[in-house]
């Protein structure tokens, strides 16, 4: 045993100071490149297909035609909107797992407006009402767990998760009430002939309004978190409620306010999903994005612009993956695998940004001579 002890360990790890930005980006780029190489090897080993062809097909799947490009953009905006919504809550270390439910209740509110109001009103005020009501619905869905958290310190993770199921049941109920045609148990496209309550095309682009609304919210959230007093309060409460109380911050008020904002933006995402994309409502309107968006928010450290990048990557992977699944007759698991590996390498590069790894060198042996 004592013999072995004479050797330095093979690697040891130390914490880094602050890295220059280019260094930081370089590590991430290397991580991404390594992910692609490893994926290529695994893909070839498993399927015998040319990995470059598979990557090419993924790219084509996401950006192959104008229509595909716009569908990809629409999906990116959806994910970004929810990510931006979750960001303030997570920055406050309020684990809002309820994005899914908040999107759904926002969607239900929007769908209700489309069904009951849109046929009898001009478009602009209808959209405005839908916007407000969806935001309100989402905000209420955030308010309930926030009040319980602020007053009785309940566990928000479980609470927001449970709220998802309630939202799901409400959606099911509404779907059965609004089902069309009768007996189909789906709502179908709402107002398919009049397009009442649908987002209008702008510059000839069907999804332009989605982009405008989401980008406005994203930029506003960036400024809100970075420059406003309320944003500062969110950061302090997130770090330590004791410090917040010491700094004369009303912690309860900040929790309730922030989670309401978070829920409201998720509600707006539901509005966009219904009026700007699907034109229908179903229990899969949120489609798991409320959970994926948690990755978006955390990976970006709540920075709106990085969130745009992360959402783009995730949507690209997802759209590309479904393309290769059909084109090469591979099943969905291959795409899930690629997604998983790329995320693994991106998260892994965080480690190399924070820590430095030293390998054992031959220094000692030469010294001893």
């Amino acid at each position: 045993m004592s013999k072995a002890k004479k050797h330095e360990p093979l690697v040891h790890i130390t914490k880094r100071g602050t890295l220059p930005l280019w260094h930081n980006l370089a590590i991430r780029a290397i991580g991404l490149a390594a992910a692609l190489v490893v994926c290529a090897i695994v893909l070839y080993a498993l399927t015998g297909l040319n990995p470059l062809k598979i990557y090419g097909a993924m790219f084509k799947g996401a950006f192959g035609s104008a229509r595909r490009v716009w569908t990809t953009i629409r999906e990116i905006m959806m994910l970004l909107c929810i990510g931006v919504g979750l960001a303030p809550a997570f920055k406050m270390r309020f684990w809002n797992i309820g994005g899914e439910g908040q999107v759904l209740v926002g969607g239900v509110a929007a769908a209700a407006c489309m069904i009951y109001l849109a046929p009898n009103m001009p478009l602009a005020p209808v959209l405005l009402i839908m916007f407000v009501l969806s935001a309100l619905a989402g905000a209420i869905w955030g308010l309930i767990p926030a009040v319980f958290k602020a007053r009785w310190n309940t566990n928000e993770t479980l609470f927001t998760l449970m709220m998802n199921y309630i939202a799901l049941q409400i959606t099911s109920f509404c779907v059965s009430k609004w089902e069309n045609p009768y007996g189909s148990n789906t709502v179908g496209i709402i107002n398919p002939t009049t397009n009442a309550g649908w987002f209008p095309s702008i510059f000839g682009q069907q999804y332009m309004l989605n982009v405008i609304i989401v980008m406005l919210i994203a930029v506003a959230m960036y400024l809100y978190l970075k420059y406003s007093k309320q944003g500062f309060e969110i950061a302090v409460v997130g770090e330590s409620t004791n410090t917040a109380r010491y700094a004369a911050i009303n912690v309860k008020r900040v929790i309730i306010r922030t989670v309401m904002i978070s829920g409201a933006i998720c509600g707006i995402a539901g509005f966009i999903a219904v009026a700007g994309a699907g034109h229908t409502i179903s229990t899969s309107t949120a489609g798991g994005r409320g959970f994926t968006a948690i990755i978006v928010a955390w990976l970006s450290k709540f920075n709106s612009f990085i969130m745009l990048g992360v959402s783009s990557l995730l949507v690209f992977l997802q759209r590309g993956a479904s393309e290769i699944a059909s084109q090469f007759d591979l099943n969905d698991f291959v795409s899930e695998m690629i997604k998983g590996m790329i995320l693994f390498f991106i998260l892994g590069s965080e480690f190399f940004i924070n820590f430095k790894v030293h390998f054992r060198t031959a220094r000692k042996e030469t010294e001893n001579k």
Partner: protein
Amino acid sequence: MEANLAVRMVNITKTFSHVVANNNITLEIRRGEILSLLGENGSGKTTLMNMLSGIYFPDSGQIYVNGEEVSIASPKDALDLHIGMIHQHFKLVDVFTAAENIILGLNEKAVLDLNGVRRAVKEICDRYGFVIDPDKKVYDMSVSEKQTLEIVKVLYRGADILILDEPTAVLTPQETEKLFAVMRNMKADGKSIVIITHKLHEVMEISDRVAVLRKGEYIGEVPTSQTNPQQLTDMMVGKATTLNIGRPEPNGLTERLIVKNLTVKDADGVKKLSNVSFTAYGGEILGIAGISGSGQRELLEAIAGLQDPEEGSSIMFIPPDKEASELVGRDPEDIYKSGVGLAFVPEDRFGMGLVGSMDLVDNIMLRSYKSGKSPIADRKHPRERANKIVEDLEVVTPGLGTPLRRLSGGNVQKILVGREIAAEPSLLMTAYAVRGLDINTSYTIYHLLNEQKAKGAAVIYVGEDLDVLLELCDRIVVLCAGRVSGIVNGRSTRKEEVGLLMTRLSGKENANE
């Protein structure tokens, strides 16, 4: 000579990103001696010893134990070499008993032989004069008992070389004496002991030899019998400093804070303060003395609105040229809004006073960001203020954008105190303002407090070092178990009297207990 060496560390260097914590240090530890490792904060004492105990791994240099070169990559390696360290922050499982903590992590047989452990613990205790109850749960223990347990733990694991990191920081004078007696017994038994400290009188009292570090460099070593506190101070700080703290006469005393019958209970309903009454005057420094946990924290937090006092308590605050106002029943937001100039340097720097992940500017604005009607936070003025604090208090920082957690404890404290003072308070409360700070920084802080006193602020100084309290404060309130056991004059009281008040309530109150 060689044979007498327990440990030899040769040319040890350790850096943390850009900071050189230890530069080319060579240190010897002999068998059967007590070595003091002396140095200011951030001088690299703990880092050096952490490399001996396997917490860190040196960037370069060799370590020899009993003459043989070794590589210590983990605390387990260190224990295999019979090296054990007692850290400043105890590493015990609260819900376990002493015996359970002692065998925790030892890969012994599947069946726990707790009786065997009890016997072995008793044997160790008898040999060195410890008192410990193997079946007592850690959460029921006092700080001193926990420390004893930590020492017994490493002895049980066969340590011959013990490293104690600032062991007396948490002890009362009486407990310190007990610890020193035990250390002498261990030394007589042939153990080598390293005590990390920056308290000179302890160095003089306990150690055989003193090794001094300064800013990561090894300065030198001297036998304790051939040195004196003044020489050690010179070695430690690099230039001769006087040990006198200034205490200007208070001027223009005005009543600033009248505390009456203050009673505070914690979440479990345990009384932390009972019927505390005193008056703090503008223009004086009022010391609060007491063994840690005697209610100091609750007292300051109650005044700051962070704790809810019980019915019948009263904290009357009389700002200069303004109406007196009652602070009981108001939260910090309320107190802030009413414009009461109340500054508070809490004990828990990162848990309450500052946000470690935020930079200097954001931390400076923590107390003032609400000012102005704009929804946008003003960072321009805090930036100017931060610049001024950095300049005035000689804060060492790479820049205003550095997260505070990356700065050393002394610099962090300067920022905290600087911020609280910058608001020109009429009442300044500080809890252990110099805890863990080196001598130079401590004097900077004392000087700042005296400045506030001269400006007419009422300063409340909660301290643990009685020498400092008696040199700095005009009057001292002594707390014992949540009660005021005496209010004494800082100029005419002897240290022993305060020490006595800290441990015993005076006559009549005692009878009620």
